[in-house]
């Protein structure tokens, strides 16, 4: 299991409280490099909150989020980094980032964790192409000499910009939206907006891509196209995926690893096959009361398996 042997992201004892409300309670799981990891759970289980903690939009109340951008995150190295109070360390064994210490934009720019949003957040009034060029802000900013050289028209900014456009074109081509490059993003159909948001995130060259309900609101044909896109991203772009999803067809078809949470607590963790048959998961989804779960558990002699 890659999430045990080569973990990319290690979530340890993550807790998030809003006032008195505990949204996530001591949650630990890992996501493997090269895996598609699915985070599932009933509505209000705290999945999006986990995402917001990983991508820096929320500061976790407690817990550690160790991210090994390259190489292996050896436990000793992570602990040493934790004790220094620094945000990241470039160890010989690999680059480690502690995401809970970093502001949101640095998580994207340095640790290379990109994300999409449940309610699509495109730059609706900018064209499809502009959306993808904005996503390459940081390298382009450098190429424009932090605006100064670009303003004076010296340096290689024009060349870098056309490279950025080429990259955008190839992504657009891969999802069949090249024709609409000059249209406002807000004018695209819903399914295209979802996929545009995903390739916009890909334009930041992420190591881990977090997708918040990418299949929500899609019809079966669009869902199939989405699956294909996600597999391409995993297989051809060396990007691992972490996704929140309700559509079990997507989850079971493409994920390598599934983590189930409910009420902010992990209730199951394993391969799609394992999770599918976990009685706790079935209980959580079918809304069985706790006593009945215990009864079911005792009947089949299981206690959560891979936990």
């Amino acid at each position: 299991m890659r999430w045990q042997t080569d973990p990319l992201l290690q979530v340890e004892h993550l807790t998030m409280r809003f006032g008195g409300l505990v949204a996530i309670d001591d949650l630990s799981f890992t996501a493997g490099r090269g895996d598609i990891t699915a985070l599932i759970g009933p509505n209000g289980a705290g999945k999006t909150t986990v995402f917001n903690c990983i991508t820096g939009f929320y500061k976790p109340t407690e817990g550690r989020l160790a991210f090994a951008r390259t190489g292996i995150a050896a436990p000793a190295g992570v602990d040493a980094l934790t004790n220094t109070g620094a945000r990241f360390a470039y160890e010989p064994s690999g680059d480690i980032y502690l995401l809970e210490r970093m502001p949101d934009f640095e998580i994207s720019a340095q640790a290379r964790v990109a994300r999409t949003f449940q309610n699509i957040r495109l730059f609706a009034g900018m064209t499809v192409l502009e959306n993808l060029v904005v996503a390459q802000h940081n390298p382009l900013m450098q190429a424009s000499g932090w605006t100064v050289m670009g303003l004076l028209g010296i340096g290689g900014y024009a060349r870098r910009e056309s490279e950025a456009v080429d990259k955008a074109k190839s992504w657009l081509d891969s999802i069949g939206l090249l024709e609409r490059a000059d249209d406002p993003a807000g004018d695209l159909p819903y399914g295209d907006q979802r996929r545009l948001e995903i390739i916009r995130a890909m334009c930041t060259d992420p190591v881990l891509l977090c997708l918040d309900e990418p299949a929500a609101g899609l019809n079966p044909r669009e869902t199939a196209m989405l699956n294909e896109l996600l597999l391409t991203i995993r297989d051809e772009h060396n990007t691992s995926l972490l996704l929140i999803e309700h559509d079990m067809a997507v989850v079971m078809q493409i994920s390598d690893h599934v983590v189930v949470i409910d009420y902010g607590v992990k209730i199951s963790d394993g391969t799609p096959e394992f999770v599918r048959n976990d009685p706790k998961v079935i209980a959580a989804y079918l809304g069985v009361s706790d006593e009945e779960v215990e009864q079911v558990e005792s009947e089949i002699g299981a206690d959560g398996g891979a936990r």
Partner: protein
Amino acid sequence: MENFLQQLINGVTLGSIYGLIAIGYTMVYGIIGMINFAHGDVFMVSAFIAMLLFLAVTAFLGVSSLFLAFFIILIAGMILTSLWSWTIERIAYRPLRGSFRLAPLISAIGMSIFLANFVQVVQGPRNKPLPPMFNQVIQLTSGGEFDVTLAYKQIVIVAVTVVLLAVFWFVVQKTPLGRAQRACEQDRKMAALLGINVDRTISITFIIGAALASVAGVLYLVNYGVVSFSDGFIPGVKAFTAAVLGGIGSIPGAVLGGLLIGLVEVLWSAYVSSDYKNVAAFSILIIALIFMPSGLLGKPEIEKV
């Protein structure tokens, strides 16, 4: 010590006036999320209406009882000022509801400029002094180096403020109107679906805000005895500061904020520098917005991702 006590009394008096204006800001902001920039000028118009009515009542109708005259201008002023506010909402804001975000703000600023210049044109640019009203004082302490006094007008101001706030609080908390108002604050579309007449509720909010501003206008006139066409802007901004300080959308917060701003202004003038008293008020606005954007009694806002 005596000086401080005196300043405290003055501060509460001034703060009552700011608090009354602040309620208009806070209610309108609560219900349609807009800074009603013209509210300060509506207050100024109401002070002019009060001044003219006072002259009319005393000179033309020959009412000699000060209290009767005060009562008449209070009621008539509330009605006439409400009409102004209603008309402004109807003409300058309602057509822009749901439109581009900055359009109502620009429209409100335009209205504010219009009102100030309208009054300047029709009433002339000179200050309008009235003879002092309720000018007897009660001596609270004596013999010290400084006599602390409580003027009748200060009693009138605070008493009127308290009575009106009580009535107003009852309306907002206990009547169907208040319920409709709170529903519109939460979710205007849903309120409309449930059969609440949103347009009318918003109009009434403007009317109530203006009525309270008009009381503030009368009390301002009683306190200072003079009014000018340019008196809307600064008290308006201070009252909005009060609303923000107290927590925008919160009515008790507006009153509390008003009292605080009044106290700060008076104490700052007394102990630091009267030249910079407005700088103090504006600095409080900045500090309050930066460090406690939800104000003293407001609800904190969590960023939705």
